[in-house]
């Protein structure tokens, strides 16, 4: 199948005067884990909601598995083939987890696999618990189980780990890897760098309703992450011309820092060899490779994390 699993073309969505999505285009090859990374309010959720037929585009088009979610007949077919975990899924408070899973199995006309699904999302002990008595993370995992229960071809996850603890995140990540191994296509929105870097084959960075960069995580880092740097303390260390060419050096007393051009491993070797030749001891050495977060900041000019951003704004 060469046709993309998802094709979004010149998507625009306005709510009154507010332009939530301002001309987004992308396509997703089958079997890809595709991430929309951006801050809250960047337009990720609106983009995802147009793909699943919850929001009609103001202009532009969306095709999922070749189907148009704005057309009634297409949408009806599509609903059986996509699984969705929404950001704020609300399920009836007085329903038990097992009842929800059984009922949703009936909706999709599939054999209930309640026990198996519960185990996969780590809720096997919580099947008799009322939804209203579950933690936010447990509710999210129940929503994930609903999204997967009919074995969909394309899975949409909107901020899947928001409010989840470390256990929930591990479960979700394991499920994503399982889906990838099964050849499913996944679209997820996130504002967690680690999640995007770890899970996604391809990342779109979304800012103010537009895609500002799109690539694999390593390629984004290589293009935008900037130089790695090595930071160390060494009493009696001195530069010589062979080290000068490694990169841009700064010195503060005994602390040295170099922003390395190219591969930092070789630079590290040269520094250690030079220190040995000078017979000086190196303390407290730190090698910082640029990550996706550095690339994100370089591309968007802002921090991803809201708390960090607002702390910065306050300062």
């Amino acid at each position, binding site marked *: 199948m060469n046709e993309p699993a998802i094709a979004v073309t010149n998507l625009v969505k306005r709510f009154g005067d507010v332009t939530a999505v301002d001309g987004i285009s992308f396509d997703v090859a089958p079997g890809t884990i595709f991430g929309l990374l951006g801050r809250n309010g960047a337009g990720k959720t609106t983009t995802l909601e147009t793909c699943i037929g*919850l929001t009609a585009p103001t202009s532009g088009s969306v095709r999922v598995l070749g189907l148009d979610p704005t057309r009634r007949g297409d949408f009806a077919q599509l*609903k059986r083939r996509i699984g969705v975990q929404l950001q704020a899924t609300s399920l009836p408070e007085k329903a038990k987890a097992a009842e929800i899973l059984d009922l949703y199995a*009936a909706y999709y006309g599939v054999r209930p696999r309640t026990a198996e699904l519960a185990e996969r999302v780590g809720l096997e002990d919580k099947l008799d618990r009322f939804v209203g008595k579950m933690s936010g993370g447990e509710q999210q995992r129940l929503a994930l189980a609903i999204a997967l229960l009919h074995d969909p071809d394309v899975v949409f996850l909107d901020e899947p780990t928001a409010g989840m603890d470390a256990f929930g995140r591990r479960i979700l990540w394991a499920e994503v890897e399982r889906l990838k191994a099964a050849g499913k296509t996944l679209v997820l929105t996130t504002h967690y760098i680690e999640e995007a870097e770890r899970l996604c084959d391809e990342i779109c960075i979304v800012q103010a309703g537009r895609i500002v960069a799109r690539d694999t995580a390593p390629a984004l880092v290589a293009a935008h992450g900037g130089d790695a740097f090595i930071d160390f303390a060494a009493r009696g260390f001195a530069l010589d011309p062979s080290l000068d060419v490694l990169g841009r050096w700064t010195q503060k007393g005994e602390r040295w820092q170099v922003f390395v051009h190219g591969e930092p491993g070789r630079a590290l070797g040269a520094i250690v060899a030079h220190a040995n030749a000078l017979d000086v001891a190196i303390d407290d050495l730190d090698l910082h490779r640029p990550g996706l977060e550095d690339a994100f900041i370089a591309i968007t000019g802002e921090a991803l994390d809201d708390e960090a951003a607002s702390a910065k704004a306050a300062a």
Partner: protein
Amino acid sequence: MTVLRILLAQTRANFVWYFLRDGEMIFWSLAIPVFFLFVFSFALGGGSTKQTSTFLIPGLIGAQVLSSGFWGVGAMLATFREKKLLRRIYLTPIPSWTFFASLVLYRMSLLALQALILAIVGGIVFHVHVVGDPVSIGVILLLGAATFVSLGTVIGAVVRSTESANNIASVLTVPLAFLSDAYIPIDRFPAAIGSVLRLLPSTQFIDAFRGIAMYGDSLARYGAWIALLCVWTVVGTVVSARFFRWV
């Protein structure tokens, strides 16, 4: 068949989730009407309590029909939408009317339970007898339910927030019950006001229901009002279908 099975499973789930597991709901929907029956029968019963309760029981059931439509379906849909429960349902492949129908069926079964309890308590305590033809009673009750469910759904379709839906539902239900011959006989109002109140679909429904159930009237006697209730049902359904939003 599958759709029917889903409908029944969802109706049963609604009954368990929103009624059996909700103590407050059980209290308000079962105890309060009986409490009203006692208070009103003794407080308002100038003549015999039997006469008063014969008047009151269909009125109390009629008021529950109004509240099922406005609260049970109308405001509930707005709540479900605001809590983002409707959109979750919308994304499943079940035909959209199934969810709506399950909500109506749940309220209808609750209504049947309420009517049964009022009729039994009325029979034992006040020696009130339901003399009407069961089929005619069923027809007029279903028609009333259809009318107020479809009008209630207009609230659920047009109003965005749970809070305003609840406000509208209570503003409609409580005063309407008092003005529609449910608790207070309409001839206690000045004649001019009374004739206006008789134009209300709620008055027409409650009067027809009372006449058929308690005094053995035939459906045909209320033909004009039944036709009007059908018109309200159609109007409510058309407006709801036009404006209803899942998201």
